[in-house]
């Protein structure tokens, strides 16, 4: 079943990063769509507006936010929300995305996605905030699972149950980051495939994938290396079982020659096509 039939199939793309802008245009036919990090364009000025326009003229753009702090019990920062709305309005995407996390509490900006406790109150908080965001941004919102170094105390359910309830309560689709799922399974010792089977597969709209790095026996989601075999396996499994519309390679650090990025996009596209044929 497909819970988001109105969202078109986008294909396989990459998270836009300025250093490989020229290569993107040189290899236009190999990149089906782009994800843009909203926060990189918030203080954009005239040059940033030009860049957005240029990208939007050639690619479908999906705005991806980092700092809305949808899980904050204190509510949303409205001026930030307005600025996100301005970008969504500009690029007219089929949907936009944010994280199941909080980044701000009291006046402290953590500047990083922090985990929510798997509780009913946290589900209420994120549902209330999604409702506020919807009043300002009239485009479907999908929510991404994050990695965590620790589980917040007071859990009343498993992570899979938490994600299921959030999808039900907010009516949002899911951006499943398969690398985050794999990373958490390694660091917290659970079976990634079992977790996948417990997720609301019919709500998955988009995927993220990339490789991280090891720090001792902890896997860090640094978005800094080639996608490992375990993540390719998970990606294949999800593509086989969920009504995915788009797949994004989310490389941030240690950017390789663009040819390596293209190789990964081709590989994901081939997997997807083979599953469908």
């Amino acid at each position, binding site marked *: 079943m497909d819970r988001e039939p109105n969202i078109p199939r986008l294909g396989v793309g990459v998270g836009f990063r300025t250093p490989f802008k020229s290569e993107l245009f040189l290899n236009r036919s190999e990149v089906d769509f782009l994800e843009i990090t909203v926060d990189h364009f918030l*203080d954009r000025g*005239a040059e940033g*507006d030009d860049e957005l326009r240029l990208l939007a003229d050639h690619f479908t753009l999906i705005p991806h936010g980092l700092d809305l702090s949808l899980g*904050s019990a204190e509510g949303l920062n409205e001026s930030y929300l307005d600025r996100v709305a301005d970008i969504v309005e500009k690029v007219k995407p089929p949907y936009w995305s944010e994280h199941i996390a909080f980044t701000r*509490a009291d006046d402290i*900006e953590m*500047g990083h996605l*922090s985990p929510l406790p798997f509780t009913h109150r946290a589900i209420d*908080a994120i549902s209330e905030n999604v409702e506020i965001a919807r009043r300002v941004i009239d485009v479907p919102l999908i929510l991404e699972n994050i990695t965590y170094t620790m589980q917040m105390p007071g859990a009343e359910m498993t992570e899979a149950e938490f994600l299921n309830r959030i999808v039900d309560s907010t009516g949002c689709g899911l951006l499943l980051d398969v690398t985050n799922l794999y990373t958490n399974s390694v660091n917290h010792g659970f079976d990634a495939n079992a977790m996948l089977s417990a997720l609301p597969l019919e709500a998955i709209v988009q995927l993220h994938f990339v490789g991280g790095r090891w720090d001792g026996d902890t896997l860090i989601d640094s978005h800094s290396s080639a996608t490992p075999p375990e993540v390719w396996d998970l990606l294949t499994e999800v593509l086989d079982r969920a009504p995915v519309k788009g797949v994004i390679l989310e490389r941030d650090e240690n950017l390789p020659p663009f040819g390596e990025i293209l190789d990964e996009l081709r590989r994901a596209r081939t997997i997807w096509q083979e599953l469908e044929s």
Partner: protein
Amino acid sequence: MSLRELQSQFARLVTDDAYRESLRHEAIGAENRNLPHRLAADAGVLAHAATLKRKRAGAAAVRLPLVRHVLADQFFEQFDQFAGAHTLSREQRYDRDALTFLTWLASRIPVDEQLKGIGPRLSQAIRINRHELTGRLRRAYIGIARVDGRQLPESARFPNGMCLCVWLRCPGSQSLRRFVLRMPFT
């Protein structure tokens, strides 16, 4: 503890080293440890705090190439100390963070034995990187462009559908504002 209190405690614990350490010490040997004490002693909280600092340090290193060069490996050690006592600002966060780090670092030169030896070179690097960064931040005028209805729907209300758009940075809040002006000519 309410969700709001939990988030507030967590945010403070992962951004304020002194606060976290004081709770951790209080917790040692205590019989009834409350939630903030337990969180302060949690290895995952420490790891999260380290991740936050690593991200800020990476952003500062890009903005302060000379200081990074002069400090070499000490850059991340020094930034770690700084970040544990200073939180990010809301607007222009990584630029402001890098500037606050420079001020803090300059104040450390006379008192930090490791910095004393490279004091003159470091002071010069601080001055140069600060000059570059403040120049960028103080720039009130960001840009001007001729736009039409396709780029800016508001411009459709003007007679020929063309207008000028000016971006300015507000001196107090540092937030970005956009002003749409009617074109004085066609």
